[in-house]
């Protein structure tokens, strides 16, 4: 009875198929990338070439205009739509696929994966894009390595980075050969950015309103280094927690840091205005929901002493409006709340409408903000 012989015999059998399976593809992988590039050369004529540096400093050369792109990250997709329309977009992430009313031209077949951290490489390859856009806070390195084998370039563009707004928009203008539309968008952005800077220029720090900004989690505020903090300060407010700094990396710009603060500290700092961010999509919150959120904030223990609550200057703003067009619209709204006299002639809702209708080609439902004072009436 070769009871203990059977096992030694089986081990080699198990090993060999595994080795053989590795050998062939290893050999193939040497030769195939050459093959893989072939079908991607379009039998196209008038295409130019553009060499540029992407957000992480990689130098890339692409054929323009880009005709087929896969885009990860909603902010990037918005910019592409603003500059080039949805026509060149062949693949999106789940965020864009979910909201049908905001992205009416997106079909389920265009879904290229959950999101920037877990793209579906097979789907992307099947879409045969000219380029794939990733923000820098994604697994772009892995994507570049994998997609590179298929000759598909990965371009790192971080559209949510407000500091790079104009640079990104200009780049898109060149990539999609739509310089005028890019210029128009930049002009739109610059106009309001300059407006804010101008009107707040002579407002000394001591007179600026103090703002406590809170994200969706209770007692989670945003600090210097976060794009939302910048939005408040660009809008002329002073973040009551601006003195707090958490050790953060240079690459932290524009990220949201849900920094937990002591409730007593919030009360102690006596903010003039409270701004509460709530997540939302294209569809705005119902009035009832907004009221509920604001009343909950006002009802917190100790908050009745805060000037903001006493004056009803508690505002609810959806991330959607706040983040629109690199947060400039949010900044505008905040400026309007803080200094209604200085910004009497500015209508943030109208600006939002322009952004949505002209640049995003969807209708503007309105109602992205609510104030406690208003709702109490």
């Amino acid at each position, binding site marked *: 009875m070769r009871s203990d012989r059977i096992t030694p015999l089986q081990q080699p059998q198990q090993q060999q198929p595994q080795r053989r399976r590795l050998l062939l593809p290893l050999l193939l992988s040497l030769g195939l990338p050459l*093959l893989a590039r072939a079908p991607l050369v379009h039998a196209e004529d008038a295409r130019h070439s553009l060499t540029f540096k992407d957000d992480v400093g990689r130098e890339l050369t692409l054929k323009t205009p880009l005709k087929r792109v896969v885009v990860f990250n909603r902010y990037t997709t918005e910019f592409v739509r603003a500059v080039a329309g949805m026509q060149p977009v062949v693949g999106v992430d789940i965020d864009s696929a979910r909201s049908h009313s905001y992205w009416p031209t997106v079909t389920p077949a265009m879904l290229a994966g959950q999101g920037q951290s877990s793209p579906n490489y097979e789907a992307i390859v099947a879409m045969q894009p000219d380029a794939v856009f990733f923000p*820098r806070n994604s697994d772009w390195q892995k994507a570049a390595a994998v997609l590179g084998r298929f000759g598909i370039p990965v371009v790192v563009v971080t559209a949510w980075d407000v500091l790079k707004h104009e640079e990104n928009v200009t780049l898109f203008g060149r990539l999609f050969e739509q310089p005028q539309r890019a210029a128009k968008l930049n002009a739109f952005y610059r106009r309001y950015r300059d407006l804010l800077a101008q009107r707040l220029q002579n407002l000394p720090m001591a007179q600026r309103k103090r703002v406590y900004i809170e994200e969706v989690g209770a007692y989670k505020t945003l600090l210097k280094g976060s794009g939302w903090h910048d939005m408040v300060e660009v809008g002329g407010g002073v973040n009551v927690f601006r003195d707090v700094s958490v050790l953060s990396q240079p690459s932290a710009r524009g990220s949201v840091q849900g920094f937990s603060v002591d409730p007593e500290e919030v009360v102690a700092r006596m903010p003039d205005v409270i701004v509460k961010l709530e997540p939302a999509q294209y569809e705005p919150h119902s009035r009832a929901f907004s009221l509920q959120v604001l009343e909950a904030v006002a009802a917190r223990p100790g908050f009745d002493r805060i000037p903001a609550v006493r004056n009803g200057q508690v505002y609810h703003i959806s991330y959607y409006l706040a983040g629109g067009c690199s947060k400039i619209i949010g900044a505008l709204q905040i400026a309007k709340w803080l200094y209604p006299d200085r910004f009497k002639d500015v209508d943030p809702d109208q600006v939002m409408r322009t952004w949505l209708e002209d640049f995003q080609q969807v209708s503007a439902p309105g109602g992205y903000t609510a104030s406690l004072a208003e709702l109490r009436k």
Partner: protein
Amino acid sequence: MKMDIPAPTLMQSLQRHQRRNALAMIAGVALLIAAMALAGSLGAQKLGMATSLRALFAPLLPVAWLNDIPAWQISLLQQLRLPRIVMAVVAGAGLALAGVAMQGITRNPLVSPYTVGISPAAAFGASLAILSGATGVAGAWSGLYLTVAAAFASAVLCATLVLAFSALRGVSATMLVLGGVGLTYLFSALTASVQFVATEQQLAAIVQWTFGSLNGSTWNEVAVAGGVLLLGAPLLQWHAWALNAFAAGGDDIAASLGFAVGRVRTVVTVVAVMITAAVVSFTGVIGFVGLVAPHIARLLIGGDHRWLLPFSAIVGALLVLLSDMAGRLLFAPVIIPVGIVVAYVGVPLFLHLLLSSRHKAGL
């Protein structure tokens, strides 16, 4: 040697048992191959069986047979799907083997690569690498491999600590388990601390890593992990009898049967750790397989490690492969990380087996 009348029936029943085990192994391997073929033909891109087989063996076939298949589809199969499938098999087999080995030498059915601290340590290493920001640097390869190297180094460090502690107090089963549990908590806390100070995008990357995913597996990764597995598996099989002795009787018995207890324990631990670290560094944390695949195998084939080791490997490979398929296909094209699906697939299976074979669950 006189064989009386009763003996032939005993001999026969023993032979029948052996044959049954051999059949189970063959069936397992066949099932695995079938699953791999199926996984090859399914995906975001639906290629028929015939097409996938043709694409797989492309270099061996005449060009005429391949005319209708676009080169990018062949490439997709060769570069995306096949490495992913093989990685699933390697990861499942490796983690299961590590689990069996560790359970055997500690005589503890609750031990797995996870509970001995290896996986949490790897997660910590990866999170440190991500935190350092160096992974975001464009320099193509450095960032990718930094995370892998950090995870691997951290896992090996943890194992060294566990073994060092036990060496001080005698390499006993209890020491390994307790030391491992302690380090599990330590590394989990360390990872949580890293998550606490990380920025949002770093946090997302860290959390993503802990899900355990086979997305984007490349042949290079397969070669490294597979290589370690191919080296380690025969080594473990060599110690199958030692594992039987440990599991069946404990240190004293094993020693009295002539096994070098301390040395075997150390060798087996090192091999199990290396295999786990090699797998987990690339795929992230895929839990559950190392714990449960051995038990599923035990319920089907018994506790003799000569059979249990290879059969656990097959069960583990099947578990991970099928989970990855489910994760890829159920909500296509959204891919659910395999680390999440494995528990959903494995637990019902495990409970079913446990309940239906209560009388022979000699755990």
